[in-house]
Each structure stands twice: as structure tokens, then as C-alpha cells.
């Protein structure tokens, strides 16, 4: 350190300061707004409070839409320390929690809590910290965090994080410099609320225990300087100093350099060199939080520029739309070429995407320039290498080198020129004779570099995860192999001490016999079970039976795949029946406890176990249906693409779908024989659910049905297309389309019915639906009957998903077969 503490204090007492390199002297224009006292702002109707207004992580909303909130009530909380909550700025109703455009140059929406003010402005219970000197530091810091205080100078760094630094602090610097032109919020605050700022400083010095406190104010604010001096003249540990006006003296690193001659290391923090800095606004907020218990819900905002009639400072609630502030200051649109409001000052601010964005914790100024006030439309000329920018740079960088590399997107080279040390003060762009918006280029390059770094980080993480997974799979494989080896060895050992070869053979024969027996028995069961309508006594048996039925269906299907069309469809029907039977058997086993009555109201909520079984049954049926349609469709469509086969196909699909749906629906009911015979007996499976009184359930079922219908329709259209194409060569395609359209409708209806039938699974209407398989083609599917239990809803959802998936797959196949036909 070039200067020790005593030397620095001595120099400060002599009003001698260091200086930072570069810097500019723009016209301050502070007189516009610093002539009048800070005005209170009338309460806006609606307040929009962004959940994240600071640097760090956003919190989680504690309120929900429709909640009544009181002024000062906490709206968010976060388990991570790098976060501060936001509070309701007034009492009212939470009307929405949604993404709104916030104060960010991108105009991208961020999560906001919208509060409709009730006009009462009722405070929540305030909990001031009584006699803070007696409190532990951690409780004070906690109170500061709870009050939602983030640095109010502009960056929005959480204050509680800053004040918990463990390092020894020599200088606590209170930043009242406010170096950027136009802004007078801190100026007015110091003039009018010097005493409260002083209290905040006292709290901070109690927390941080610095050797000396320095309040730094630029010499263009003599009134503020006087006011601060007055409130601090009772103590020798606080020094109020006036520093020469030069932009950007208010930058943290620059101010430290001016006051102490020390430079903050590029990767370090001010605390590393024994300095800590807070804005005067932050001090005010801390005093409010500790002494009055009030969270940070308002701040001083300068509304200035020549396009407003009454430039002034206002106490604006956080979340107040900018519009409201502008109208208060009498914004005159005609004085501007195009509406443009700048948040922040003219050097570092940004043009707001809209005037509806809310005031946030870091909003210190709204600048509304008139036509000729600011040079907004810069005509960028070529760089002439005059190096004026390098002379103006307060961080001694080489702006033109960084400009070249940033413009050419040579990011690594730009980084070599210490791009990330740039504080984006805009001094270089201010002096540039070619009017190059240098900071634009730096910001863009910085963002690009950050994104690249993030990508690299993510790639690295993915790589680690991928490799970890590979290692895990390898390990599992080896373990499995070891187990198999062990098992094989054990088998060998077991067979050897016995009767040797002969015994092994005998065992095998016995096993085969037992298997065959079991198969026979279960086959009988499997075929009987649907007819017998008696609940299966044994879960295991049913499962085995189902498995066998499945295997058979598969075999039969494989054998029948090349079969001719009419036969194929009949067999397909049979397969579907088998599938349905299997599904039913499973479903039934789950429904053992239900009564035998066909029209019985099986309204009891099924246990979760049954549901699971029903799901399994549905999955099995689905798999079958898939396979059946896969094998059936190509043979049919290639053989004959006439209307008849279309019908059959559709029927088959519908039947399968219906079977699945029924199996589910009937989980607790019987009438399986009917279900089985139904597809055979009828041409058009039409499920006609009965009505029910629960409107909620109906609605849900309707939604599910609608979704399914839409999907089924799509599928039907695709199928129609696929099938009409081969026809089109011979017949008018219009005709085929006509022929197909009822079919499509039917399909859609059937699919809808499937979904509905599923939704009804606890209702008694399932049997009815089956026993009434009408040939009516256009009978509208009626609202499903359903219990409005959550369970039923979930099942309906599953049913919808299944139907959807099926429809999708069928569609794909239809397209496939269609293209085959074309070829």
C-alpha cells in the first residue's frame, strides 16, 4: 500500500485528494431538478413489483393471486443468502403474478407481482429494532436483509452481503458524489434527510467498525455538503469532504482512488484494501429498516429532462409504473422526436422498452430529453485513432483496441486488453469525435464472452455427467456378468453331485411338463375368464395367463401377418379380442371386490393398487393394439385400398381402442362376455356413455375427449390422404375423400368415446355402453359420466394420453403405408 492510514487521513483533513486517470466534464444540468423538494407521489392504481431487483438470485413468491397484502408485507423469500426479498409497497389485492416487461434494456419479461392498490395504504405490523447497539451484528444484518435492501447507487448489490465482510475495514466511505449529469436524487435526499442518513451511517459503522467514516460529496452540491456537515459535526470519526467534480468520480473504484490513493485490485473487492462503500440512499434505507422497521418500498427518483414540464424528485413506491411518474412531472410528448425515456443518467442509462415498466430499487433517474437535448441518433464514423478515448478512460484501458477487437468479435483479444475491467462509464464514447458508441461494443462483447463461458461450463458439466454415466453402466454390466457367472457356477455345482446327466435331463423333462400343465390350465383360464365373469381368485395366475395370452397373440399375429385381407381383419379382430381379454382379466383381478350386478354403481374410490393394475392392463392392451395395427395395416393397404378395407381397418382400430377403454372402465364391473362379443357382432363400435350430474367431471372428460378427438381427426385425415392417393389414379379423389370423411368422423368419435369410457371407469355405464354398440354413425358422444374424484381425473388423463399416443402411431403407420402404396 502506497499510503498508510494516518497519511491518508491527514491528507483528507487538509482537503487534498488524489485523482484517477482520465475522466470527463459533461454539463451537469442538475439545476433542472434540484430546485424543488422531493415530492410525494399520489398512489398509483396498480403496482408491478419485479421479484428480482438486485444482483443475485430471485426469491420464491410467498403470495398467490387473490391474496390481500398489507403495505410492507414480504412478497418473496429465498433460502439462498445471495438474495433479498421484495415487499408490497402499498396495501391491496394481488391481481396477478406473471411475466411483465421490466426495467431492462432487453425489454424481456420477468416475473412480477401485480398489486391493485386499495387506496388505504394500511401498514403491516412494523418491527423496528429497539436499541440496535445492544443487538448482535448478525441480527442487525438479518434485519437489513429482511428489509430487502440492495445497493441503491445503481448496481443493486445486496447490502447484507456487503456488510458481513470479515475483513478489517479502515475506511467506510459514504458515496454522495452523484457524478452523472442530470441526477439529483441523492443531492435532494442529503439536503432534506441528512439526519436519517447520519443514523444509517451510525448503524453501518456499528456493524463494520471502521477506523474512520468519510462522506464524499462532489463540490457542485454545496447545499448537500452543508447539510451533511451539520449533522456530522458532533463527532470526529465522520469526515464530510468535498471532492472536485469530475465524471465518473462516483464510481466505487474511482472514488476510493480519489479519497485514499489506493487502487482496488482487478479481481478483488474494496474490502481487500480496507475500504467499504455505501450509497447515501442505502444509508437512508438502512435507518428506515432498523429504526422504523420499514422495508425498502420507496425511493427517490429524479424525473428530469427538457421534455417534462416540471422536472423534480419524487418519492416513488417501488413498482410504480414509469407512466405515473411522467404524468406527474407533466411529460410533453411533442417535445420529443420519438417517445424515449432513459432510465439512469445520460452516460450510463438505457432507453426503456416501454413506459409501463415499474420503478425498481435501482431506479435513480428518469431522463426525458427534448429533441435537441441529447445526441441520440449517433452517426457512427470510422475510428481515426485519435486516442482521445484512451485519455478519457478512468481505468487506463485502451478503448480503441478493445473497440477493434469487439467489433471484429475477436473476443479473446478483446479480453486480453482487459475488457472486463471496463466500468462502462461512457467517458470514451463521450469524447469520441467519430461518435462511435464504444460502450455498445464493449457490452456486446462482454455478453458474448459471458455466454461462451457459460456454454463451456455447461459442456464441462455435461461431459462429467456423461462420463459418470458411462462408468456406472460399465460397472453395472460387470456386476451383472459376475452374477451370471456365479449363478452358472452354482447351477453346475448343483447338477454335478446329483445323478449327473440323466438327472439333469429328468429335471428338464419334469420342468417342461410342469410348464405345459400350467400353460394348459392358464390357457383355459384365460379363455374362460372373460366369459365366466367371475373374479380371478389369484393375482399370480391371472398374470401368468395374461402373459401366455400375450405370447399367443403374438405368435398368431406373426403367422397371420401375410394372410389375405378379409381373413386378416377377422383374425385381427380376434387378436384384439385376445388383447382385450387379457386386459380384462387383469382388470378384473383388480376388481375382485366389486359386485356382480351389471348396472351396479361401482362408485367406491378404487385403491391405488387397482389403479396401477388397470394401468398395466391398459399398457398391455395398448401394446397389442399397436402390434395388431402394425401387422394388419400394411397387408391391407397394399392389398386393397378400397373403402371397404378402410372401414374394416377403422373398425378394428376402433374396436381395439374400445376394448382397451372398456377393460379399464370395467375394472370394477363385469359384463366381459358382452364386451368380447361386441366387436364381432357390431360393425361400428359406438360407445354411448350416459349422462351424469357432476358438471366438473363432465367438463374434464369433455376436455380429454376433445383433445383425443382432435388427434384422432388428424390421424384420420392422414389415413384418408394415404388411402385416397392410390385411388386417385383411378377414381375421383373427391369421392374417396367423401367416403373417408364419415370414417374419419367415426374414428374421431370412437377415440373420443375411448377417452370418455376411461373417464367413466368407476361408473356403471360401462356395460351399457358395450351392450349398446349401435351402428349409428353420427350419434354424438355424450358427456361422460364420472366421479369428480381426483383419481378419476387422473385416469381420464392417462386414457387421453394413451389414446393420443395411439392415434399418433397409427397415423405414422398410415402415412407409411400410404407412401408404400405410392411407390
Amino acid at each position, binding site marked *: 500500500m502506497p499510503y498508510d492510514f494516518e497519511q491518508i487521513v491527514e491528507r483528507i483533513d487538509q482537503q487534498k485528494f488524489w485523482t484517477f486517470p482520465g475522466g470527463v466534464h*459533461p*454539463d451537469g*444540468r442538475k439545476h433542472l431538478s434540484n430546485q424543488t423538494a422531493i415530492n410525494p407521489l399520489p398512489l398509483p392504481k396498480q403496482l408491478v413489483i419485479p421479484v428480482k431487483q438486485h444482483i443475485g438470485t430471485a426469491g420464491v413468491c410467498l403470495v398467490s393471486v387473490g391474496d390481500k397484502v398489507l403495505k410492507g408485507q414480504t412478497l418473496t423469500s429465498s433460502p439462498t443468502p445471495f438474495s433479498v426479498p421484495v415487499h408490497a409497497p402499498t396495501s391491496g389485492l394481488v391481481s396477478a403474478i406473471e411475466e411483465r416487461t*421490466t426495467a*431492462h*434494456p*432487453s*425489454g*424481456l419479461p*420477468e416475473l412480477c407481482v401485480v398489486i391493485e392498490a386499495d387506496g388505504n395504504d394500511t401498514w403491516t405490523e412494523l418491527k423496528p429494532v429497539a436499541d440496535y447497539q445492544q443487538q448482535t451484528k448478525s441480527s442487525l444484518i438479518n434485519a437489513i436483509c429482511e428489509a430487502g435492501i440492495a445497493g441503491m447507487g445503481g448496481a443493486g448489490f445486496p447490502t447484507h452481503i456487503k456488510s458481513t465482510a470479515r475483513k478489517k475495514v479502515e475506511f467506510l466511505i459514504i458515496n454522495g458524489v452523484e457524478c452523472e*449529469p442530470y441526477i439529483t436524487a441523492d443531492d435532494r435526499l442529503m439536503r432534506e434527510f441528512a439526519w436519517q442518513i447520519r443514523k444509517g451511517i451510525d448503524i453501518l459503522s456499528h456493524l463494520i467498525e471502521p477506523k474512520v467514516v468519510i462522506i464524499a460529496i462532489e463540490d457542485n452540491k454545496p447545499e448537500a455538503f452543508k447539510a451533511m456537515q451539520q449533522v456530522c459535526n458532533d463527532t470526529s470519526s465522520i469526515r464530510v469532504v468535498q471532492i472536485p467534480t469530475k465524471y465518473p468520480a462516483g464510481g466505487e473504484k474511482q472514488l476510493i482512488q480519489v479519497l485514499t490513493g489506493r487502487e482496488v485490485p482487478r479481481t478483488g473487492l474494496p474490502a481487500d484494501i480496507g475500504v467499504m462503500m455505501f450509497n447515501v440512499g442505502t444509508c437512508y434505507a438502512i435507518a428506515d429498516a432498523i429504526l422504523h422497521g420499514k422495508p425498502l418500498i420507496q425511493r427517490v427518483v429524479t424525473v428530469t429532462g427538457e421534455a417534462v414540464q416540471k422536472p423534480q424528485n419524487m418519492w416513488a413506491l417501488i413498482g410504480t409504473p414509469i407512466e405515473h411518474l411522467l404524468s406527474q412531472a407533466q411529460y410533453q410528448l411533442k417535445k420529443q422526436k*420519438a417517445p424515449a425515456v*432513459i432510465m439512469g443518467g*445520460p*452516460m*450510463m*442509462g*438505457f*432507453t426503456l*422498452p416501454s413506459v409501463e415498466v415499474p420503478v425498481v430499487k435501482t431506479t435513480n433517474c428518469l*431522463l426525458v*430529453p427534448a429533441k435537441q*437535448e*441529447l*445526441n*441520440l441518433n*449517433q452517426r457512427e464514423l470510422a475510428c481515426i485513432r485519435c486516442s482521445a478515448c484512451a485519455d478519457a478512460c478512468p481505468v487506463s484501458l485502451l478503448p480503441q483496441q478493445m473497440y477493434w477487437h469487439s467489433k471484429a468479435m475477436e473476443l479473446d483479444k478483446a479480453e486480453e486488453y482487459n475488457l472486463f475491467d471496463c466500468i462502462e462509464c*461512457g467517458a470514451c*464514447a*463521450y469524447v469520441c469525435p467519430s*461518435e462511435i*458508441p464504444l*460502450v*455498445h461494443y464493449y*457490452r*456486446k462483447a462482454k*455478453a*458474448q464472452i459471458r455466454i461462451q463461458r*457459460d*456454454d463451456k461450463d*455447461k*459442456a464441462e*458439466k*455435461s461431459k462429467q*455427467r*456423461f462420463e*459418470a*454415466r458411462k462408468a456406472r453402466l460399465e460397472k453395472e454390466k460387470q456386476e451383472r456378468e459376475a452374477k451370471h457367472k456365479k449363478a452358472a457356477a452354482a447351477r453346475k455345482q448343483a447338477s454335478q453331485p446329483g445323478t449327473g446327466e440323466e438327472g439333469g435331463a429328468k429335471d428338464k423333462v419334469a420342468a417342461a411338463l410342469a410348464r405345459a400343465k400350467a400353460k394348459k390350465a392358464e390357457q383355459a383360464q384365460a379363455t374362460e375368464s372373460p366369459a365366466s365373469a367371475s373374479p380371478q381368485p389369484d393375482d399370480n395366475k391371472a398374470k401368468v395367463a395374461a402373459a401366455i395370452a400375450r405370447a399367443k397373440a403374438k405368435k398368431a399375429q406373426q403367422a397371420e401377418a401375410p394372410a389375405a385381407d378379409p381373413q386378416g381383419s377377422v383374425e385381427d379382430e380376434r387378436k384384439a379380442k385376445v388383447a382385450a381379454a387379457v386386459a380384462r382379466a387383469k382388470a378384473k383381478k383388480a376388481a375382485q371386490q366389486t359386485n356382480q350386478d351389471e348396472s351396479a354403481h361401482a362408485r367406491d374410490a378404487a385403491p391405488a393398487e387397482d389403479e*396401477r393394475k388397470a*394401468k398395466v392392463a391398459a*399398457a398391455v392392451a*395398448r401394446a397389442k393394439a399397436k402390434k395388431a395395427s402394425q401387422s394388419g395395416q400394411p397387408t391391407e393397404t397394399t392389398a386393397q385400398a378400397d373403402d371397404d378395407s378402410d372401414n374394416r381397418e377403422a373398425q378394428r382400430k376402433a374396436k381395439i381402442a374400445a376394448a382397451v377403454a372398456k377393460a379399464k372402465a370395467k375394472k370394477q364391473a363385469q359384463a366381459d362376455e358382452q364386451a368380447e362379443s361386441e366387436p364381432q357382432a357390431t360393425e361400428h363400435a359406438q360407445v354411448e356413455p350416459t349422462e351424469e350430474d357432476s358438471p366438473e367431471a363432465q367438463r374434464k372428460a369433455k376436455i380429454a375427449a376433445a383433445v383425443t378427438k382432435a388427434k384422432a381427426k388428424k390421424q384420420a385425415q392422414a389415413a384418408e390422404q394415404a388411402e385416397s392417393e392410390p385411388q386417385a389414379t383411378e377414381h375421383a379423389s373427391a369421392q374417396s375423400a367423401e367416403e373417408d370423411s364419415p370414417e374419419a368422423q367415426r374414428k374421431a368419435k370412437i377415440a373420443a368415446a375411448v377417452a370418455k369410457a376411461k373417464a367413466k371407469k368407476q361408473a356403471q355405464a360401462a356395460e351399457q355402453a358395450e351392450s349398446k354398440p349401435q351402428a349409428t354413425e353420427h350419434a354424438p358422444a355424450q358427456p361422460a359420466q364420472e366421479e369428480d374424484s381426483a383419481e378419476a381425473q387422473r385416469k381420464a*388423463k*392417462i386414457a*387421453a*394420453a*394413451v389414446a*393420443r*399416443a395411439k392415434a*399418433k402411431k397409427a397415423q405414422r403407420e398410415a402415412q407409411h403405408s400410404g407412401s408404400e402404396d405410392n411407390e
Partner: protein
Amino acid sequence: MLLSSLIALGLLALAFGLALGYAAIRFKVEGDPLVDQVDAILPQTQCGQCGYPGCRPYAEAIANGDDINKCPPGGESTIKELAELMGVEAKPLDAAHGEDAAPKVAYIREDECIGCTKCIQACPVDAIVGAAKQMHTVITDACTGCDLCVEPCPVDCIDMVTVNPTTASWQWDFNQTPRGDIPVKVIS
């Protein structure tokens, strides 16, 4: 004179030869550092769109002379970097392996998930959590958007959702008019 110079050169050659021989043993490099370098450039989505089962196999293929333009997730910037590293000409992305699309992440519609674990098995970076017959969900931060989980899902409940830029990932776009404009100059 001639002899002495010959002897001197011979001795020098011998000494250097020994030094080199020793260095070859002492500083032997295990593996192929080029593969590591290539692998470091690849985006590690493990999506297999290049035709290789993961990024490392593709890195090995590149090191053995395969084309450098088969990585859609990496896009132009990756191709550029690879070209620089390999000393070859950068070429446009091979459309046969897919388009350079906006970053995506998988999203499971949870109330439709039947808990079949098929997507979990397909995920190359273990970014899907869940158990048999339990709902699954995607860890968005770990998802590379490789698409591999979409196909195995029996109920088609996985969507690939485009990642919208946030205020953190947003970049200043100067082609877009006044939005994000930084007024800098005060006319004095």
C-alpha cells in the same frame, strides 16, 4: 582438423540423440492430446447427431481425419474453432446431421408420464430423475437438449422446449432499433 571436427560433430550428435531418447521416455504422453483438445471444443451434448455415440468418439474421429462440420449443436463457432485447431478450412455445417437450432431442453408433461423409465435409460447425461411407475422429470440445468429421450417415450409426453433468452443470457442487439440504446452524449 577434418577429423577433429568430425569427432566433435559425432559427439554432439550422440549427445543430442541420447538426450532426445531420454526425453522420449521421460516425458512420454499417454493418450492423444489432440483428441482431448477437440473434445474440449465440442459442446458435450452427447446427442449423437454426428453419427458417433457421444462427443468423445466424434473427437477421436476428427483427430483421425473425419469432417469437422457434423456437429449441429456446436454450430458455426465450433466449426470455426475446430478448423483453427485442425488447420483445415472451415466449412458450413453438414445439413445431413441436422440444423443448428436454438438451444432446447426436454420437458416432461408430468401428468401424462406413466413412469416407464425409458427416457431415463436414453438420457446420456442422467438429466432425468424418476423411478419405475413414478413420475419422471427433467433437470433442466443438466439437460443438453439432445432429443434422445423423445423417441423412446411410449406416451409421447416429452416436448423439446426452446430456451427463451432471459435478461441474464440476453445480448445487446444493435441492429434492433432504439431498444437497448445507450444514450451517451450530452450536447453542450
